[in-house]
């Protein structure tokens, strides 16, 4: 009976930890996405973009950089020499840019932008995970969003 209780307790603890991790990851991702999408919407223009680096010109004409650090698995915001970590535990991260759709284009079809000066939409994709029970990554949160640069 005691053994059954211990097994039940162990299973419950693991389940609680998994659910807690999932909620925590989702919460952190939502906060980061909220912050990122607000800055992209408010930006005057996209200055440069690569898979892991996005440089914007903000409303004050300052350069605002978001970059993914593969070493620390983090998304970092950098403005005026000050760095802030928006998200940690990121396994994969990807920025991509798109143009305005053609007048006759189907809904939500954005051509890929070949240059930043024609960028109207920024897409963000990331995957975050947590370790549970040693090195098994059994908790994962995936985010993908397209954000319109309102002032471009």
């Amino acid at each position, binding site marked *: 009976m005691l053994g059954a209780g211990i097994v039940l307790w162990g299973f*419950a603890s693991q389940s609680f930890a998994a*659910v807690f991790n999932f*909620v925590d990851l*989702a919460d952190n991702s939502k906060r980061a996405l909220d912050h990122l999408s607000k800055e992209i919407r408010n930006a005057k*223009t*996209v*200055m440069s973009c690569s898979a892991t680096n996005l440089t914007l*010109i903000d409303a004050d004409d300052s350069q605002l950089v978001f970059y993914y650090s593969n070493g620390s698995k983090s998304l970092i915001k950098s403005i005026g020499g000050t760095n802030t970590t928006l998200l940690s535990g990121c396994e994969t991260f990807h920025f991509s840019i798109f143009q305005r759709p053609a007048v006759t284009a189907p809904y939500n079809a954005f051509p890929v932008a070949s*240059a930043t000066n024609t960028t109207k939409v920024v897409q963000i994709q990331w995957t975050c995970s947590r370790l549970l029970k040693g090195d098994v990554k059994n908790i994962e949160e995936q985010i993908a969003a397209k954000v319109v640069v309102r002032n471009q």
Partner: protein
Amino acid sequence: MLLTAMILVGLVGLMATAYMKLASRQHYLTARSQMWSSEIPIAEAGIEEALTHINSGSTNFGVNGWTLSGGVYARQRNLGDGYYYATISIAQPPTLVSIGFARIPTQTNYTQRTVMVTTKNGFPNFAILAKESVDLNGGIRVDSFDSSNPLYSTFGTYDPMKARDQARVGCNSTAAKCIDVSSGKCSVAGYVATGAGGTAVGTVGDFAWIANKADKKQIQPGHQRDDLSQAISDVGVPFTGGYNTPSSGTVLGTNYTYVIGDGKYMMSSCNLSGQSMIITGRATLYVAGDFAVGTQSSIVIMPGAKLDLFVGGPTLSLGGNGVINSSGIARNFSIWGLPTLKTANYGGNAACFARIYVPQADFVYHGNTDFYGAIVANSFTIRGSVGFHYDESLGRGEPVYQIAHWEEL
């Protein structure tokens, strides 16, 4: 045994309750996140209504449910479970602020997000609009056409057989003869308007009036106003980053000093002398200093291309072969003069198809070819025996106020 079983059942029940609580909380957080996201479209709806309201044509914004309160015009409107509170500042051009409210799930409280939009004046509905003076010299004939209407144009371009007498020439000045159309055979087929007390002289009226020699140098009754007070706002710097620098290239086998495609371009200054520039896409070119097209030089705007040229230097001079706007549509070539642009002229050999907005510059048109489009300047002088053909579609399709900048606060 019974006690142990009860403890186990209690533990299982406790865990089941905890799981349900967690699931419920997760559901609540998802609903709250959706509500938070919905506040932006709600606030946007307020911006849409405010923008429509200020563009409705009324100069009194205190109508249609909008009331003056605390120095701003405001109104509130419900949208589903949420609502927005939008305001219009009394400053010109106005600033719009809209707060989107959405109700927190299972509660009566609301959270809010705020969007602010600054506006700028659209292109005015005038053939010629000046702050100080309008002076037509020689044999200038001002008339109109409509590039968007095949009844009043042919393939979108001016056709003398379809010309109209709907050109409007305005000057905010209150000085005598601030609009002077009295020289030689000059005429305005349309209307003139000056500031209070200002006067216009010359031949102004409909085609029948202008054709009648007895009406020469007279203004047809009903074709003159002296209550003009047209807002002419300054032009801002279009961008400070995210631009390309023009470079040379070959298009259709011809070498060009500058080839400009889609997007934003910037130059510190530009003086084309024996050189050429071609526009192949929808481009915005910002020249921070002077801009000049000199001898044996030209700018070519290809069919389907469009150029918005912003000039920040004190001088703009378009000579040589001028600007060859291949489409013949004025909307495809716009010149915007920053407040630092003080002197501008066009004397190119090519006919000028353009809309020109240089509110602080004294503009002189001395080309030997016709002008098609519209112009706003501090003062405007045109010399020679050419036609000035106003494209009515330029002003009619433009809202009075347009969005200059959008920001979530």
